[in-house]
Protein backbone atom coordinates (compact mmCIF):
# COMPACT_ATOMS: atom_id res chain seq x y z
CA UNK A 1 0.00 0.00 0.00
CA UNK A 2 2.83 2.44 0.85
CA UNK A 3 4.27 1.93 -2.65
CA UNK A 4 0.91 2.84 -4.24
CA UNK A 5 0.70 5.96 -2.05
CA UNK A 6 4.22 6.94 -3.10
CA UNK A 7 3.50 6.32 -6.79
CA UNK A 8 0.31 8.42 -6.56
CA UNK A 9 2.43 11.21 -5.02
CA UNK A 10 4.83 11.09 -7.98
CA UNK A 11 1.96 10.81 -10.49
CA UNK A 12 0.25 13.98 -9.27
CA UNK A 13 3.58 15.82 -8.92
CA UNK A 14 4.52 15.03 -12.50
CA UNK A 15 0.98 15.97 -13.61
CA UNK A 16 1.52 19.39 -12.00
CA UNK A 17 4.88 19.75 -13.76
CA UNK A 18 3.47 18.84 -17.18
CA UNK A 19 0.47 21.12 -16.66
CA UNK A 20 2.76 24.04 -15.76
CA UNK A 21 4.81 23.56 -18.95
CA UNK A 22 1.58 23.27 -20.97
CA UNK A 23 0.32 26.50 -19.38
CA UNK A 24 3.58 28.33 -20.14
CA UNK A 25 3.17 27.53 -23.84
CA UNK A 26 -0.57 28.27 -23.80
CA UNK A 27 0.07 31.69 -22.20
CA UNK A 28 2.64 32.53 -24.89
CA UNK A 29 -0.22 32.05 -27.39
CA UNK A 30 -3.04 33.42 -25.26
CA UNK A 31 -6.19 34.86 -26.84
CA UNK A 32 -9.88 35.14 -25.95
CA UNK A 33 -10.47 31.56 -27.20
CA UNK A 34 -7.97 29.70 -24.98
CA UNK A 35 -8.44 31.96 -21.95
CA UNK A 36 -11.08 29.73 -20.33
CA UNK A 37 -8.88 26.67 -20.93
CA UNK A 38 -5.92 28.40 -19.29
CA UNK A 39 -8.02 29.18 -16.23
CA UNK A 40 -9.30 25.59 -15.98
CA UNK A 41 -5.81 24.16 -16.50
CA UNK A 42 -4.39 26.50 -13.84
CA UNK A 43 -6.93 25.21 -11.37
CA UNK A 44 -6.01 21.68 -12.44
CA UNK A 45 -2.31 22.34 -11.77
CA UNK A 46 -3.14 23.62 -8.27
CA UNK A 47 -5.34 20.58 -7.56
CA UNK A 48 -2.61 18.20 -8.82
CA UNK A 49 -0.09 19.91 -6.55
CA UNK A 50 -2.35 19.77 -3.49
CA UNK A 51 -2.98 16.05 -4.12
CA UNK A 52 0.76 15.40 -4.55
CA UNK A 53 1.46 17.38 -1.36
CA UNK A 54 -1.20 15.74 0.81
CA UNK A 55 -0.45 12.20 -0.40
CA UNK A 56 3.32 12.71 -0.14
CA UNK A 57 2.93 14.41 3.23
CA UNK A 58 0.88 11.50 4.57
CA UNK A 59 3.55 9.04 3.39
CA UNK A 60 6.36 11.20 4.82
CA UNK A 61 4.75 11.47 8.24
CA UNK A 62 3.58 7.84 8.50
CA UNK A 63 6.05 5.71 6.49
CA UNK A 64 9.28 7.55 5.70
CA UNK A 65 11.02 6.66 8.97
CA UNK A 66 11.73 3.14 7.63
CA UNK A 67 13.35 4.46 4.44
CA UNK A 68 15.22 7.08 6.47
CA UNK A 69 16.78 4.44 8.71
CA UNK A 70 17.84 2.42 5.64
CA UNK A 71 19.30 5.48 3.87
CA UNK A 72 21.30 6.57 6.94
CA UNK A 73 22.91 3.13 7.25
CA UNK A 74 23.84 3.07 3.55
CA UNK A 75 26.55 4.77 1.46
CA UNK A 76 24.30 7.72 0.51
CA UNK A 77 23.27 9.33 3.85
CA UNK A 78 23.10 12.69 2.05
CA UNK A 79 19.95 11.35 0.33
CA UNK A 80 18.25 12.08 3.66
CA UNK A 81 20.49 14.63 5.39
CA UNK A 82 20.64 16.99 2.46
CA UNK A 83 18.14 15.93 -0.22
CA UNK A 84 15.06 14.90 1.78
CA UNK A 85 15.52 17.73 4.27
CA UNK A 86 15.66 20.20 1.38
CA UNK A 87 12.76 18.58 -0.50
CA UNK A 88 10.34 18.60 2.43
CA UNK A 89 10.74 22.37 2.77
CA UNK A 90 11.11 23.40 -0.88
CA UNK A 91 7.85 21.60 -1.61
CA UNK A 92 6.02 24.11 0.59
CA UNK A 93 7.22 26.87 -1.76
CA UNK A 94 5.93 24.86 -4.71
CA UNK A 95 2.56 24.34 -3.02
CA UNK A 96 2.16 28.08 -2.42
CA UNK A 97 3.17 29.06 -5.97
CA UNK A 98 0.77 26.43 -7.43
CA UNK A 99 -2.01 27.73 -5.14
CA UNK A 100 -1.33 31.26 -6.40
CA UNK A 101 -1.53 30.17 -10.07
CA UNK A 102 -5.37 30.22 -10.45
CA UNK A 103 -5.41 33.70 -8.89
CA UNK A 104 -3.06 34.99 -11.61
CA UNK A 105 -5.03 33.09 -14.26
CA UNK A 106 -8.21 34.92 -13.21
CA UNK A 107 -6.72 38.09 -14.76
CA UNK A 108 -7.57 38.86 -18.40
CA UNK A 109 -4.37 37.41 -19.85
CA UNK A 110 -5.48 38.14 -23.41
CA UNK A 111 -5.58 41.89 -22.74
CA UNK A 112 -3.07 42.47 -19.92
CA UNK A 113 0.64 42.32 -20.75
CA UNK A 114 1.42 42.62 -17.01
CA UNK A 115 -0.70 39.55 -16.25
CA UNK A 116 0.90 37.52 -19.07
CA UNK A 117 4.38 38.40 -17.81
CA UNK A 118 3.47 37.38 -14.26
CA UNK A 119 1.80 34.18 -15.45
CA UNK A 120 4.93 33.18 -17.38
CA UNK A 121 7.11 33.74 -14.29
CA UNK A 122 4.73 31.78 -12.07
CA UNK A 123 4.39 28.80 -14.43
CA UNK A 124 8.18 28.77 -14.96
CA UNK A 125 8.74 28.78 -11.17
CA UNK A 126 6.33 25.85 -10.79
CA UNK A 127 8.04 23.91 -13.59
CA UNK A 128 11.55 24.47 -12.15
CA UNK A 129 10.52 23.66 -8.57
CA UNK A 130 8.51 20.58 -9.64
CA UNK A 131 11.44 19.32 -11.71
CA UNK A 132 13.72 19.80 -8.70
CA UNK A 133 11.25 17.85 -6.51
CA UNK A 134 11.16 15.06 -9.09
CA UNK A 135 14.97 14.87 -9.19
CA UNK A 136 15.25 14.94 -5.40
CA UNK A 137 12.66 12.16 -5.14
CA UNK A 138 14.76 10.07 -7.51
CA UNK A 139 17.90 10.62 -5.39
CA UNK A 140 16.03 9.64 -2.20
CA UNK A 141 14.77 6.42 -3.86
CA UNK A 142 18.31 5.74 -5.06
CA UNK A 143 19.56 6.30 -1.51
CA UNK A 144 17.32 3.46 -0.33
CA UNK A 145 18.33 1.25 -3.26
CA UNK A 146 22.10 1.65 -2.82
CA UNK A 147 21.74 1.07 0.92
CA UNK A 148 19.88 -2.21 0.33
CA UNK A 149 22.39 -3.27 -2.34
CA UNK A 150 25.26 -2.43 0.01
CA UNK A 151 24.12 -4.97 2.64
Amino acid at each position, binding site marked *: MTEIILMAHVLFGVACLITAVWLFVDVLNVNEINLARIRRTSLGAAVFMWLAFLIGGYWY*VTSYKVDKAIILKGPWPFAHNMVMETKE*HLVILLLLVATYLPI*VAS*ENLAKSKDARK*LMLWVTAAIAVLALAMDGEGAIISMGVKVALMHH
Partner: protein
Amino acid sequence: MENTTLSKRTVSFGLALAAACVINAIIVVVKEKSDAVMGAMKKVLGHHWTTHSALIVVLFLVLGGLLGMARGGRGIAITTSRFITTLVSAIGAAALIIIGFYLFVD
Protein backbone atom coordinates in the same frame (compact mmCIF):
# COMPACT_ATOMS: atom_id res chain seq x y z
CA MET B 1 6.39 54.62 -13.03
CA GLU B 2 2.70 53.72 -13.12
CA ASN B 3 1.11 51.33 -10.67
CA THR B 4 0.35 47.85 -11.93
CA THR B 5 -2.79 47.00 -13.87
CA LEU B 6 -2.94 43.68 -12.02
CA SER B 7 -5.94 43.18 -9.75
CA LYS B 8 -5.83 43.88 -6.03
CA ARG B 9 -6.22 40.14 -5.33
CA THR B 10 -3.28 39.17 -7.57
CA VAL B 11 -1.01 41.78 -5.96
CA SER B 12 -2.00 41.09 -2.36
CA PHE B 13 -1.69 37.31 -2.64
CA GLY B 14 1.51 37.69 -4.67
CA LEU B 15 3.12 39.76 -1.92
CA ALA B 16 1.74 37.32 0.67
CA LEU B 17 3.37 34.52 -1.34
CA ALA B 18 6.71 36.37 -1.33
CA ALA B 19 6.53 36.91 2.43
CA ALA B 20 5.41 33.34 3.16
CA CYS B 21 8.28 31.91 1.09
CA VAL B 22 10.91 33.88 3.02
CA ILE B 23 9.27 33.14 6.39
CA ASN B 24 9.17 29.45 5.41
CA ALA B 25 12.96 29.51 4.94
CA ILE B 26 13.50 31.40 8.20
CA ILE B 27 11.39 28.84 10.12
CA VAL B 28 13.55 26.06 8.62
CA VAL B 29 16.70 27.65 10.05
CA VAL B 30 15.14 28.52 13.41
CA LYS B 31 13.58 25.10 14.07
CA GLU B 32 16.72 23.21 13.01
CA LYS B 33 18.86 25.39 15.30
CA SER B 34 16.49 25.41 18.28
CA ASP B 35 15.42 22.20 19.99
CA ALA B 36 12.74 24.15 21.87
CA VAL B 37 11.14 25.41 18.64
CA MET B 38 11.42 21.98 17.01
CA GLY B 39 9.87 20.35 20.08
CA ALA B 40 7.03 22.86 20.18
CA MET B 41 6.29 22.34 16.48
CA LYS B 42 6.20 18.57 16.98
CA LYS B 43 3.70 19.00 19.83
CA VAL B 44 1.24 21.24 17.95
CA LEU B 45 0.21 18.87 15.14
CA GLY B 46 2.20 15.74 15.96
CA HIS B 47 5.01 16.33 13.44
CA HIS B 48 7.19 19.41 12.92
CA TRP B 49 6.67 19.32 9.15
CA THR B 50 2.86 19.20 9.44
CA THR B 51 2.88 22.20 11.79
CA HIS B 52 5.37 24.02 9.56
CA SER B 53 3.28 23.43 6.41
CA ALA B 54 -0.01 24.40 8.04
CA LEU B 55 1.53 27.55 9.52
CA ILE B 56 2.87 28.73 6.15
CA VAL B 57 -0.35 27.98 4.23
CA VAL B 58 -2.46 29.83 6.83
CA LEU B 59 0.04 32.72 6.84
CA PHE B 60 -0.21 32.97 3.03
CA LEU B 61 -4.02 33.04 3.07
CA VAL B 62 -4.37 35.45 6.01
CA LEU B 63 -1.64 37.80 4.79
CA GLY B 64 -3.14 37.81 1.28
CA GLY B 65 -6.49 38.85 2.73
CA LEU B 66 -4.98 41.50 5.00
CA LEU B 67 -2.84 43.08 2.25
CA GLY B 68 -5.98 43.35 0.12
CA MET B 69 -7.48 45.57 2.82
CA ALA B 70 -4.53 47.99 2.80
CA ARG B 71 -5.10 51.65 1.83
CA GLY B 72 -8.77 51.54 2.80
CA GLY B 73 -9.48 48.41 0.77
CA ARG B 74 -7.67 49.53 -2.40
CA GLY B 75 -4.73 47.18 -1.76
CA ILE B 76 -0.98 47.76 -2.11
CA ALA B 77 0.24 50.27 -4.72
CA ILE B 78 3.21 48.88 -6.64
CA THR B 79 4.57 48.83 -10.18
CA THR B 80 4.44 45.57 -12.15
CA SER B 81 8.21 45.27 -12.53
CA ARG B 82 8.78 45.86 -8.82
CA PHE B 83 6.02 43.41 -7.94
CA ILE B 84 7.39 40.62 -10.17
CA THR B 85 10.98 41.31 -9.04
CA THR B 86 9.88 41.08 -5.38
CA LEU B 87 7.98 37.85 -5.97
CA VAL B 88 10.64 36.05 -8.02
CA SER B 89 13.47 37.27 -5.73
CA ALA B 90 11.61 36.02 -2.64
CA ILE B 91 11.01 32.57 -4.13
CA GLY B 92 14.66 32.37 -5.28
CA ALA B 93 16.04 33.64 -1.97
CA ALA B 94 13.89 31.22 0.04
CA ALA B 95 15.03 28.29 -2.11
CA LEU B 96 18.68 29.33 -1.77
CA ILE B 97 18.41 29.75 2.02
CA ILE B 98 16.91 26.26 2.40
CA ILE B 99 19.41 24.58 0.04
CA GLY B 100 22.36 26.54 1.48
CA PHE B 101 21.37 25.73 5.05
CA TYR B 102 21.23 21.97 4.54
CA LEU B 103 24.28 22.00 2.24
CA PHE B 104 26.66 24.13 4.32
CA VAL B 105 25.30 24.71 7.83
CA ASP B 106 23.28 21.78 9.15
